[in-house]
């Protein structure tokens, strides 16, 4: 199954959800309200979402001198 279009949102408590936009938005809003008493909006959720297949940044490497 392709990961295209899938998004990931995590909470600092360790909870995480992966799915489509329509799947993660209600899940995150429910988790925030039910577990942490935090209201939120769809825009809040999407602003914190990351694509599942986003490339991982390469670690910085020191260039040899001289």
């Amino acid at each position, binding site marked *: 199954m392709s990961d295209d279009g899938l998004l990931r949102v995590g909470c600092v408590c360790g909870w995480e959800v992966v799915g489509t936009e329509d799947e993660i938005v209600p899940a995150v809003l429910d988790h925030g309200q039910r577990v942490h*008493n935090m209201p939120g909006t769809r825009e809040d959720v999407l602003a914190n979402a990351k694509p599942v297949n986003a490339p991982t940044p390469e670690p910085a490497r020191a260039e040899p001198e001289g």
Partner: protein
Amino acid sequence: MTRLADGFEVEGPVQAEVFVVWLNGDHLELTGPCGAAPWLIELGEVEHPVAVVERIVRDVVGPPVLVHSTSWRRDGAAVVLSFVVVIAPGLVGEMDTAPIGRSELARSAATEAPPEIAYQQVLEHGLRHMAWLATDDPVVRGELSGPWQAVLASYVPEPFRALG
């Protein structure tokens, strides 16, 4: 909600830090929906903090045996109220749980807060607070009877205080 590098963080000027504790035989364990770790809850302007914690614990975990605020401190931009919440063993279910170790308290200077406070130190103080209530408060003594008394006897009784 605010974004941090690793996800959402509970925000708000007043927050509850909940330690869900249960008696597993002869020792205490820490559990909760966030695992064996502090559980952060945002506190609004209207509801009483104890009522919010009781309601959220009841909805997410189940009816608590005891809900007590045991200390407070400033953490970043927020004031954090710490709560020890006692639950029955039957409510732990699939939640991660771990034995609670002992810790030195975060002692403040005469006029200054401790520079750093680990959650284990907050929990240690919270359990000392419960040990105090178990001897001083008839309601708590009634709820935490039998084996609880034996476990709490190893904690130095200490009333509510600010940790920083």
